[in-house]
């Protein structure tokens, strides 16, 4: 048993830390610290900085332009990025499509798609969910019908995150109507400039715009845009799901959130004392802190297993469930800590000497509401419990 990183890993951590200290611009980390959505410009600026260093596509092997890191290195990198308030890397191109193209794409696709992800020329978004196919993804209805050298796509996708910034979308589409629903699905790449595509914003509960609906009406896509074989889409989606699941616990973000909520509770005055001195509020924080400390180790244990066995197992469902529960609990505490000061909307209404909340904390209520999504998307916590029932509990 040895919970510490190796000397090599510590050296790597120091290298990452030094890089972030010098290369992460203050106006970017300030924006992250403030909460809410990062603008397209800030994200692209940060992606470009990482790409230049060769650290954007953290999961890619060296042959495709990735850094060839171990899972532990990736974990260290992500934790340090959180500590430094770097923006989260938008995953759709680098962490989702990239590995799919590397595993299932043909040479031409590898040559065309991968470099444009690294360079930032393409911003990919995801066309998976549909209004009638959320948790039950296999029931998706968007059709792609072969017509000569093209597919013609009709249907509707939804929950397309940051689609408003994207120029490309990868989609799961139905290419066979009969047989088991899983068997008739294909994975296809679509340029969002193609005629017949309409993207409409979905306004979220807290008022933000980060997801979209995408409507496809007779959209003609070259057949060469198919990834893998026709009707192989479900296999690809499952493969992608396992890639999506590394660092699923988001421990780094929760550690950041814990420090923020503690700082907040030291600043907020309640009943003539800092809120942190209230035994009940302090106990609420301490309990989450204990859970998070355990989560850190659970996460490392599963990372260790993944590193030994090659791929994360179904136990990662645990990381998803408990990771979101902890993060949401921290959002909840930050909101509570503010009392009435959490209420102004939009939060920028009251700034400067009019501000009710301490600096960088005006968005706590919005974050709380927005982060209810964490336990819903990417396989809801209910779906994760179903997965655990079969694969871990064997019930």
């Amino acid at each position: 048993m040895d919970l510490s990183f190796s000397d090599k890993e510590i050296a790597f951590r120091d290298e990452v830390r030094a890089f972030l200290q010098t290369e992460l611009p203050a106006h970017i980390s300030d924006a992250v610290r403030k909460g809410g959505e990062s603008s397209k410009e800030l994200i692209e600026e940060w992606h470009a900085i990482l790409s230049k260093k060769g650290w954007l596509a953290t999961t890619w092997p060296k042959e495709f332009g990735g850094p060839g890191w171990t899972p532990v290195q990736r974990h260290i990198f992500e934790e340090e990025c959180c500590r430094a308030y770097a923006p989260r890397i938008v995953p759709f191109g680098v962490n989702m499509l990239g590995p799919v193209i590397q595993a299932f794409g043909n040479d031409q696709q590898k040559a065309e798609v991968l470099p444009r992800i690294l360079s930032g020329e393409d911003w990919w978004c995801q066309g998976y969910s549909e209004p009638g196919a959320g948790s039950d993804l296999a029931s998706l209805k968007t059709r792609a019908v072969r017509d000569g050298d093209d597919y013609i796509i009709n249907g509707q996708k939804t929950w397309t995150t940051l689609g408003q910034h994207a120029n490309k979308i990868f989609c799961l589409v139905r290419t066979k109507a009969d047989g088991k629903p899983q068997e008739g699905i294909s994975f296809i790449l679509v340029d969002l400039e193609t005629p017949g595509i309409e993207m409409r914003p979905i306004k979220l509960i807290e008022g933000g715009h980060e997801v979209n609906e995408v409507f496809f009406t007779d959209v003609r896509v070259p057949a060469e845009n198919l990834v893998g074989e026709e009707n192989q889409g479900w296999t690809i989606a499952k493969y992608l799901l396992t890639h999506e699941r590394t660092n699923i616990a988001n421990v780094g973000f929760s550690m950041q959130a814990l420090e923020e909520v503690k700082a907040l509770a030291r600043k907020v005055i309640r009943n003539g004392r800092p809120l942190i001195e209230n035994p009940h509020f302090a106990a609420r924080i301490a309990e989450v802190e204990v859970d998070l400390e355990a989560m850190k180790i659970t996460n490392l244990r599963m990372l260790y297993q993944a590193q030994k066995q090659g791929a994360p197992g179904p136990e990662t469902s645990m990381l998803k469930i408990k990771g979101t529960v902890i993060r949401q609990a921290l959002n909840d505490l930050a909101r509570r800590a503010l009392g009435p000061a959490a209420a102004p909307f939009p939060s920028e209404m009251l700034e400067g000497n009019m501000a009710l909340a301490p600096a960088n904390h005006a968005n706590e209520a919005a974050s709380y509401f927005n982060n209810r999504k964490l336990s819903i998307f990417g396989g809801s916590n209910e779906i994760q419990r179903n997965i655990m029932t079969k694969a871990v509990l064997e019930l």
Partner: protein
Amino acid sequence: MDFSLTEDRQMLSDTLNRYLAEQYPAEHRIKVAYDAPFHDATKWAELAELGVLGALAPENVGGFGGAGFDITVVFEALGRAMCPEPMLGTLMASRLLAAAGEDQEALLDGSARYAVAIGEIEAPYELDHIATTATGETLSGRKSCVYGGNVADVLLVAARNGDDLSLYAVQAADAQITGYGLIDGGGAAEVMLDATPARLILQDAKAALEDALDAGALALCAEAVGLMDVTNAMLLDYLRQRKQFGRNIGSFQALQHRCADLAIEIEQARSITIFAASRLEQPDRARAVSMAKNLIGRAAKLVAEESTQMHGGIGMTWEYPGSHYTKRLVMLDHQLGDTDFHLERVMRLGAA
């Protein structure tokens, strides 16, 4: 023992629910709730005509209600419609004016809007640390998140006055008021007082302020009960209709059992609100109201979070009215004392 409403209250409840369903539907509510001035003056006048304001005050000051169950009938209906009108401040102001022996005809006929300015940024829920101070006929200090303060004509302000906590009437025009909207809808204001002219209306106002705060907390509890009933009905409807894996998701036992627990907590919330309403004029008022607000805080958060979770993505969208119920249910806990504040008060007040 009788758990039915009196005929008069039942009629008020029916009338108000019908009026709001017809005249204040979700689309209208969302428009009013998030756009300045967060208030519909026409509807306000109509509500006053319907007798909603009068129901909040007793006969001796010109109303025809004012008891705990009058308050709960009105606010439960407002909750069902998520009505963002500044009724809470009106209720609290009415009780303060009554305690001060002030005329409140203009309040009760709806022609003057009152807001109550008690909480401050470092003392949002409690009276002991109020920093706003009176000097002669003027007040200085800052009152934060004054609900309805953005449209008020008159502010009733709690301020330190020597050894007393006193109550003052301030004309809104005399104060520096910054109005803003709230994440769960409706409006509030920051009220900056800087040697602002003020009229002393009650010298030792502590008891009256606590009475007003408790009446307000009771109103919030009733509002939450209305909100929870609608939220739960929407959730059950959704579970009956939404299909995944070829089945209504309401047929999944894991969700069924969670819904059963929600139904229980909603009944508990209704019960404790009835209890608090029955104690509003009794010596154990404070403890009963704090019990209610504590339980409501827990139940409302549970119902909101579980409803969002079981709805899945749709419950996260602005377009779905349920998301606004969710926000209101959660943010209610930020008004007039949260779950922890009221549990501590229950502990402090001990056995009745």
